[in-house]
């Protein structure tokens, strides 16, 4: 698609620019504004410079929350990406069942995030939840409302249940773009199942998998509603991820300065990690 050079195209982009900038730039400026000031109420602000940033960066609480967040995101990526790809590989390529599978798999993605939390809240209760009851029935002492390990297990299982379908659908879309001739060639070269995956399917899925990992990384790193509804950050603050901690500080204790500084740091971390990941895959794509 050789595109013609035409700066007139700016007029077509203006509405999008206006709407997104209004929602992104102004709030960001307010956050930046707070992050460098101190207030003791009734709207009087004192310029504090980077005091809040230092404070947040050194605060134990931020490190703990960040660590939990990285652990959570790392775990779900390690589970959901391979699981999603495996399921996509085993799906039938054509036939009536395909669209039925896709619709059913996409269902969890359509449920409001708080309802997902509520469903799992009920589903995993030790006494009246199906999962809680069967686990205890099998001899596990499982009560996610009290045991941090159980809370983490339930939170991760909920996220796998909620988002793996996105990876399956993306991987499946990537697989469907592979022309039949490639599979015929592989048969003729008597390639093994593994070789077919390694040298035909994986390279072709690279693009959509990059999108999948990027989307899953961003969404999981910023997750708030589901874990909050499920565990409220508890027991104690064992499941207080970054977003939950940030909301506690901002809306809970209402000290705007640290909350704003933490927001900026949080946003920069997401931006940085996404950018690093994006350029890594793009560069390896050009070089390959």
């Amino acid at each position: 698609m050789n595109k013609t050079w035409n700066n007139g195209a700016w007029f077509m982009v203006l509405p999008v620019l206006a709407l997104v900038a209004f929602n992104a730039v102004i709030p960001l400026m307010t956050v930046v504004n707070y992050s460098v000031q101190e207030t003791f109420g009734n709207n009087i602000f004192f310029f504090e410079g980077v005091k809040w940033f230092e404070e947040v960066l050194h605060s134990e609480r931020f490190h703990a929350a960040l660590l939990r967040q990285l652990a959570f995101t790392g775990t779900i990526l390690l589970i959901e990406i391979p699981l999603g790809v495996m399921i996509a590989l085993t799906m039938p390529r054509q036939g009536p069942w395909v669209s039925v599978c896709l619709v059913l798999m996409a269902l969890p993605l359509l449920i409001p995030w708080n309802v997902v939390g509520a469903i799992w809240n009920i589903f995993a209760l030790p006494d009246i939840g199906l999962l809680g009851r069967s686990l205890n029935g099998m001899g596990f002492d499982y009560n996610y409302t009290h045991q941090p390990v159980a809370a983490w297990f339930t939170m991760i299982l909920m996220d796998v249940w909620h988002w793996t379908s996105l990876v399956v659908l993306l991987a499946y879309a990537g697989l469907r773009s592979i022309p039949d001739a490639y599979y015929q060639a592989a048969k003729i070269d008597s390639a093994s199942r593994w070789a077919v995956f390694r040298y035909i399917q994986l390279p072709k899925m690279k693009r959509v998998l990059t999108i999948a990992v990027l989307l899953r990384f961003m969404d999981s790193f910023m997750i708030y509603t589901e874990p909050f509804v499920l565990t409220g950050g508890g027991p104690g603050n064992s499941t207080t991820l970054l977003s939950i901690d940030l909301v506690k500080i901002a809306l809970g204790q209402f000290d705007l300065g640290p909350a704003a500084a933490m927001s900026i740091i949080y946003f920069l971390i997401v931006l940085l990690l996404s950018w690093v990941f994006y350029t890594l895959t793009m560069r390896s794509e050009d070089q390959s």
Partner: protein
Amino acid sequence: MKRLSWLVPAFYIFFLMLPIYWLLNMSFKTTNEILGSFTLWPTNFTVENYVAIFTDPTWYNGYINSLAYVSINTVISISAALPAAYAFSRYRFLGDKHLFFWLLTNRMAPPAVFALPFFQLYSAMNLFDTYIAVALAHCLFNIPLAVWILEGFMSGVPKEIDETAYIDGYSFPRFFVKIFMPLIASGIGVAAFFCFMFSWVELLLAKTLTSVAAKPIAAVMTRTASTSGYELGLLAAAGALTIIPGAVVIYFVRNYIAKGFALGRV
């Protein structure tokens, strides 16, 4: 192995359906039956929870409000994204690459970061507690997604079709509406599905920007769970009803789902 391989997706779908089945199971039980006994099937089947929702204005208003701002957002996002996606797909212009990347970075903005500033911004514009507020706020992440999906579908239409239309004498607007949009109708469908979905599922911004008049169902549910005791049955029924809009919308785009999820890139 090929013949048995379908077991994997079948088992995965079974795993997905379990919690939803449990939610539905709950929604047809009275609260004390839920607390009292553990039964795989409601012993005394009741629809009182659903009746309660459909009669109590605070509940069904929640649905109406949610559907309202979600539809407004979808319309705004799509109509704003269409020309922009066309520009990105057909033209090179100063800073196009950076603009496209900046749009995507907004999707990386943690909603929690923006909760408070949004509250202040929309209050200052005295838009607080209105459909427009939530619809506009959701544009933050829906417009970039819509642009990305539509640009993918648009790039599938050869540029020569545009030129043939111009040569035939079509002005740009007439070409766009009469020729181009029908060609990417599936793309518009998929983009609308995504905007609807991501706006329908979001809670944080929707809750922050509303209080009474435009309170979404999600906010109504969290209020019930925390304050008026433990009406689990009611909560389950409300939750079940929130799944329906999604299931209906996805039915319309069912054969483009895979392509849509690849954001039109495949």
